[in-house]
C-alpha cells in the first residue's frame, strides 16, 4: 500500500516537473508566439487582441495554472498550428511512431541479441571485430543519411521497395484509420494489396531505426555476456561437460536477461519519442515530427501536450519493466 502511494506521488511530481520545465522554456524563448498566429503583416490592434485571447498578457504563474487546470480535466488545449485539439492530433500521430518504433525494436532484438552473443563467444576474433565495427558504424552515422542512402538505393536505384510515406500516396485516402497503425488498419480493411503496400513501406524506415537500436543492443549484449562467461559457474558447467550452446543460452542468458531487458526497454522508449530525422526523410507523420514542427511554430500547447504524452509513455514503460523484473528475477520480488 505504502509502496503504491509512493509510486503515485513520484509519478505526479515527475509529470508536473516536466510540464513546468517545458512551460517555462516555451515562455522565456525570445520568440513571439503571437506572430506565429497573426503573421508578420498584422496590424497592431489584431496583434494585441490575439495576444490577449492567447492569455499571454497574464502573469506566467497564472497562465500555467490555467493550463494545468485544463489538463486535469483531460483537455490538452487546441493546437494553434493545426486548429485541431492537441489530444486528437496526438492520437493521430502517435500510432505512426508506435508502429515504426515497435518494428524497429523487434528488428534490433532479433538481430542484435544473437550478434552480441556471437561476438562475445568469439571475443577478439574476426567475428567480434565485425559485430563491433557494424555497431560502431550504426552508432556514428547520421540517421538521416542512412535513410536517404536507403531510399536512393532500394527505392530509386533498385526499385525493390516503395518510397517515402506510409502507403503509396494514391492509396492514402482509401484507408479509414481504426487503430492508426497502418499495417493493422490495412489488414482490417481486408485488402491484401494495401496490406502488402503498407508492409513494404514499413520495411526501410523500420530497418534503419532497427539498425540503430541493433547497434546499441548488440554492444550491450556482448559486454553483459562477456561478464557472465568469466564467472566460475560457467567454468564449472564446462568442466561438467555441458554443451557450449546450453551454457550460453540456458545458463549465461538467464543471468543477463534482466539487465538486457533494461537495455531493450531504454532503446524502445527512445524510439517512441519519435525519431524526427527518420520521420522527416520518410514523410512519416509521427510524434517526433509533430513536436518538432510545433516547436518551430511556437505552438507551445502542442509541445506541452506532446511532452506530457512522452512522459506518460516513459513512466508506463518503466512500470511495466518493474513488473517484468519481478517475474524474471525472484530476488526482486
Amino acid at each position, binding site marked *: 500500500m505504502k509502496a503504491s502511494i509512493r509510486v503515485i506521488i513520484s509519478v505526479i511530481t515527475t509529470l508536473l516537473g516536466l510540464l513546468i520545465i517545458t512551460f517555462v522554456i516555451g515562455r522565456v*524563448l*525570445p*520568440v*513571439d508566439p503571437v*506572430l*506565429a*498566429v*497573426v*503573421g*508578420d*503583416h*498584422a*496590424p*497592431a490592434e*489584431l496583434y494585441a*487582441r490575439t495576444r490577449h485571447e492567447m492569455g499571454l498578457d497574464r502573469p506566467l504563474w497564472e497562465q500555467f495554472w490555467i493550463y494545468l487546470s485544463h489538463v486535469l480535466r483531460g483537455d490538452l488545449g487546441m*493546437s*494553434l*498550428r*493545426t*486548429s*485541431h485539439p492537441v489530444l486528437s*492530433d496526438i492520437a*493521430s500521430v502517435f500510432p505512426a511512431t508506435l508502429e515504426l518504433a515497435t518494428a524497429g525494436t523487434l528488428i534490433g532484438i532479433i538481430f542484435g541479441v544473437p550478434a552480441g552473443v556471437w561476438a562475445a563467444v568469439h571475443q577478439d576474433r574476426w567475428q567480434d571485430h565485425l559485430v563491433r565495427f557494424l555497431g560502431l558504424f550504426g552508432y556514428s552515422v*547520421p540517421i*538521416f*543519411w542512412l535513410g*536517404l542512402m536507403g*531510399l*536512393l538505393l532500394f*527505392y*530509386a*536505384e533498385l*526499385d525493390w521497395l*516503395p*518510397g*517515402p*510515406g506510409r502507403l*503509396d*500516396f*494514391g492509396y*492514402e*485516402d482509401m484507408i479509414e484509420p481504426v487503430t492508426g497503425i497502418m499495417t493493422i488498419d490495412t489488414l482490417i480493411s481486408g485488402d491484401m494489396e494495401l496490406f502488402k503496400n503498407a508492409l513494404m513501406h514499413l520495411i526501410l524506415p523500420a530497418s534503419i531505426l532497427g539498425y540503430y537500436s541493433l547497434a546499441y543492443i548488440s554492444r550491450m549484449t556482448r559486454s553483459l555476456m562477456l561478464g557472465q562467461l568469466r564467472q566460475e559457474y560457467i567454468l564449472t558447467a564446462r568442466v561438467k561437460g555441458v554443451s557450449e550452446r546450453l551454457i550460453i543460452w540456458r545458463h549465461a542468458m538467464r543471468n543477463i536477461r534482466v539487465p538486457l531487458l533494461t537495455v531493450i526497454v531504454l532503446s524502445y522508449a527512445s524510439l517512441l519519442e519519435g525519431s524526427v*530525422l527518420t520521420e*522527416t*526523410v520518410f*514523410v512519416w*507523420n509521427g510524434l517526433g*515530427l*509533430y513536436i518538432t*514542427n510545433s516547436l*518551430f511554430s*511556437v505552438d507551445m500547447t502542442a509541445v506541452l501536450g506532446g511532452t506530457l504524452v512522452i512522459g506518460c509513455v516513459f513512466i508506463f514503460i518503466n512500470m511495466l519493466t518493474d513488473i517484468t523484473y519481478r517475474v524474471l528475477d525472484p530476488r526482486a520480488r
Partner: protein
Amino acid sequence: MKPMLKSAVAALMLTLAAGTVAQAATPKDTLVMAYVIDDIISLDPAEIYEISSSEYQANVYDHLVVLNVKDTTQILNRAAESWSVSPDGKTFTFKIRPGIKFQSGNELTANDAAFSLQRYVILDKSPAFILNQFGLTKDNAKEKIRAKDASTLEIELDKAYAPSFFLNCLTYTSSIVDQKLVMSHEQNGDLGNAWLKTNYAGSGPFFLKEWKPNESLLLTTNPTYWGGVPKIKRVLIRNVTESATQQLLLQKGDVDIARNITGDQLTALEKDKDVKLQAASKATLWYLGLNVKNPDLAKPEVRKALKYLIDYDGLANTLFKGVGKPHQTILPEGQLGASDAMPYKLDVEKAKELLKQAGLENGFSITMDTTNKTETMELAQAIQSSWAKAGVKLEIKPADNKQTLTKYRARQHDIYVGVWGSDYQDPHSNAEGFATNMDNSDNAKTKPLAWRNSWDIPDLTKEVYAARDEMDSSKRVAMYQDIQQKVLDNGPYVILFQQIETAAVKKNVDGFIVGPSFDLDLYHDVVKH
C-alpha cells in the same frame, strides 16, 4: 542538418539522373502534388492568410472577382456577373451570376456574398484589414455590405477610392461561403468560424474531401461546376517538407508535381526528359532593411554605397538561380505601375567614393540579423564578403526566423534580411508597407516597414495615400513611378530579388497554372495524358 543533407543528396541526384529508373505511376484521374503545406492553420476564408491556404482557397471557393492570371492588371468577373460604381465613386454594385450551386445544393445568392464579406470584417482575423481600409468596420459591416435582392450586392465605402484599388483588394477577400450551412454550425456567435476552420462550405471547381494537418489535403472535383467541370477527379496535395525527397518522388513517378524545388536541383531536373519546369514571378521581394536609427545608416551616402556593394547578377546566377531574379523597386513586376529600373550594380569604387563623402573612408562595422535558413545564411555570407571590399565589416547574427522577426518588429536591428510578400495585387499594398510612416515614435499605432527602419517620411506618406485615391488610372501609374524612384534613391532598403516559384511537373501533365501570386496557382485546367 540541412546543408549536409542537401550536399549529400545533390551529389547523389546527379549520378541518379543518369540512370534509368522504373516508373511508378499515380492514378490516372488524380493529380498528386508534393508541397510544403504545414503552414495551414485554418481553412476559413475569413481567416486564411498563409501561402498554401491561399492557394487552397483559390481552388475551392468562388470569388466575386479574380485577377487575370495572364495580365494581373486586369480583373475578371467570377461569381459577380458584372459590377458598376456609383457616380460619387463610393458605392459598388455587383450582379451575382445565377445558377451557381454550393456543394450542399444551396444556390449561391447575393445574401451569401454579403454574409461572406461581412464575416471578413466582423471576425476581424488576419485578412480583415484589407476591407477595413475602405471604412468597413465591425460595427457598420452589416449596414454597408448588403444584399439589395437575391442577385444584387451593394458595398458602400466611406469615400471614393481608385476602383482598381478596391477591386484588387476584393480578389483576395471575396471567397463566398454557404451562409445556411455555415450558420447551422455557429457556436457562441462565431459565425461558424470554429467549424469552418477545418471544414468546407463552397462552390468552387473543387470541393474539400479531407484535410489532415501536416499530412495532406484531398480535393474532389465539383461535378457541376458552372465554369466547366475539371477533367481530373481528385487532387491530392501531400505535405513533403524536404525538397530532395520531393524531387525523388517526382522522378520516380510517385507524384505528378513537385512544388518546392530549389536552385541546386534545377540542373538535374532540366536534364530529365520526363519533367518540365514551370516558373512564375511572385509578388514577393527579398530585401535588406537598414535601420536609420543607426548613425552610420542614417547617412544617405552610406545607404547608397551599400546598394552599390551587391553583386546582383552574380547572386541571381548562383544562389538565386531559379528562385529569384534581380529587382530593385518596391513594386514587383506584374503590379500596376511597377518599374523595372535597375540603377544599382556592383561598383566597389563608386561605393568607396560614397563612403568617403560620408566621412567613412575607412569603413565601419555593422550587424545583420538573419534567419538561420540555409538560403538566407548563404546570402548574408555573400553580402558580407562583397561589403568587405569597401571596408564594411559585417557581423552576421543568425537566429530562428520568429526570433529575428520579433527583433525587427521592435526595430532593434541594424540590418535585417527580409522577405516581403504583397497582401493583395494592388500597388498600394507594397507602397503602404515600404513608403508610409504616419508616426515615427516608438509607440506608433501602425508600424509598417518604414517605421521598423525608423525612416521618417511625412511627405512621401501623403503621396502614397494620394496615389491610392487617384481615380485616373494613368495619373495613378505616374504617381507610383515617382514613389518608386524616391524609395530607390533614398529608401532604407536594398531591394535584391523578386521571388520566382518553380514547379517541376511531369511531362504528361498539362494545364497546371503557376500564377503571379499564391492565390493564382490553379488546378482547374489540369489534364493527365
